[in-house]
């Protein structure tokens, strides 16, 4: 895969992760701004820097499981590595315009 292919694939993966909904807010995690970074190494390893709206988010485990399952449903051989980061702290300013529309 060329660097451009990888970049396009990362965008595709982000689109895929829009299926992962935060069940409380009812917005997908991409538009919520919870994914700080997503990289693909070109050989089946996806690295994700993920945050939560609060460090003690009770849905944290569920969201992480959902991310792994959603990617593995389409790409069963992929290894999904999730790093939880709380710096910078998540703020509502990180919600996309699309996400804001969903909030009403």
């Amino acid at each position: 895969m060329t660097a451009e292919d990888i970049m396009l694939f990362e965008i595709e993966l982000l689109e895929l992760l829009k299926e992962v909904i935060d069940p409380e807010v009812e917005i997908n995690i991409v538009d919520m701004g919870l994914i700080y970074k997503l990289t693909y190494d070109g050989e089946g390893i996806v690295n994700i820097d993920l945050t939560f709206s609060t460090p003690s988010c009770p849905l944290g485990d569920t969201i992480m499981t959902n991310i792994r399952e959603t990617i593995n449903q389409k790409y069963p051989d992929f290894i999904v590595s999730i790093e939880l980061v709380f710096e910078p702290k998540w703020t509502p300013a990180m919600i996309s315009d699309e996400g804001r529309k969903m909030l009403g």
Partner: protein
Amino acid sequence: MQGLQTNNAPHPSVIIPHFVFASIALIGVAMLLLLSESALIQVYFSGKLIAITHLTILGWASMIIFGALYQLIPVVFETSLYSERLAKITFYSLGVSVVFLSYAFWINSFTVLLPYAALATFISLLLFVINVFLSYKKSPVNKIESKFILMSIVWLSVTEFIGTMIAFNFKFNFLSEIHLHYLKIHATIGFVGWFLFLIIGVGSTLLPMFFISHELNKNWLRKSFVFLNLAMLVLLVNGFSVNETSLEIVTFSFSILGIAYFLRYIYQSYKKRLRKKLDVGMRYSALAMALLVLPIIILTIVFNVFPLDDEFVNRAVILYGFSVLFGFITTLILGQTYKTLPFIVWLHKYQKLVGKTKTPLPRELYSEKIASIQFYTYFLCLIVMGIGIITQNLILLKIASYLLLLVGILYTINVMKIIVHSSKNTP
């Protein structure tokens, strides 16, 4: 993974029985009101009214708060509950004690059954206090919200001690003042020290989370904390030693300041919210916050405005108790049930299925239609009951009691719908 506290939630079997007991207790409260609606127009120190009050406070409100708090401790304290086993023992112990206590009041057994029932209740509440305190001790954070919860259990212990003392005084008669004097302290610390402190601690964590509002000025909360604690301290010192009427005004003023700062904080959160549309749970919560002003207005009239005859003061005191218990606390609980219980059940049933199969949203576990009908019925019930108490109209009180019974039934239907939800019904 550091800092993540998502595995700390207790097992649903610790929490769900509290919701079941509480919803049955709410129906019980409505039925007792139907059996004795005249209790609401008699003197407020009557066995039947006190039985209904204690069933509402302990069987309904405190029971559900205990269950919800066990679930929320990981969110607020960022640690697990100290002991799930102790929580289960507390549930059974409190359940039996509440029924025993309410029965003792109902049959006016002040000297025979009441002291034992009060002692059993005191021990049950103490078990809860120990569990929450030991959870707090493990907490890695020291936020103002946690301090509110810590102080709520301190004041719960104090009010319970006073309540038990009053109960024993019926049998052994060792207190220097009349019962009403201590009852006032017991009730005020119960309402402000226990319920309000806990609601502020939990509410100031959850409401901004549900509203999606950030960068809030927590100084409002810190000021609220100081003034409410001062109010409780002045009340205690005055009640047990000084006994000055002027100090009652100080308690009252500090309480108002504390409540005002809390409401200012919540209003700030509401104004900064990103989530504009309020669901049924948040509509209840917003209504509860607005209704918190009602008891303040009633007490202001009783305390300060003009001299009142005893008959009017009696009605005002009953209306005050009603506005706190049903206007504020019950309204908030009815709403927050829809924000917490579906998540508890959803997490339990779907945590392992997400991503593999289509899962419903937590709000799809209950009927929004029933919740909405329940909301408007309850709003109507509050108005009719309030007017009924002021005008001492028995027909209105009966209608309001039927409305409350309907609310209790609708609420229980939805609670049971959530609890018995099967993941096999997944669309």
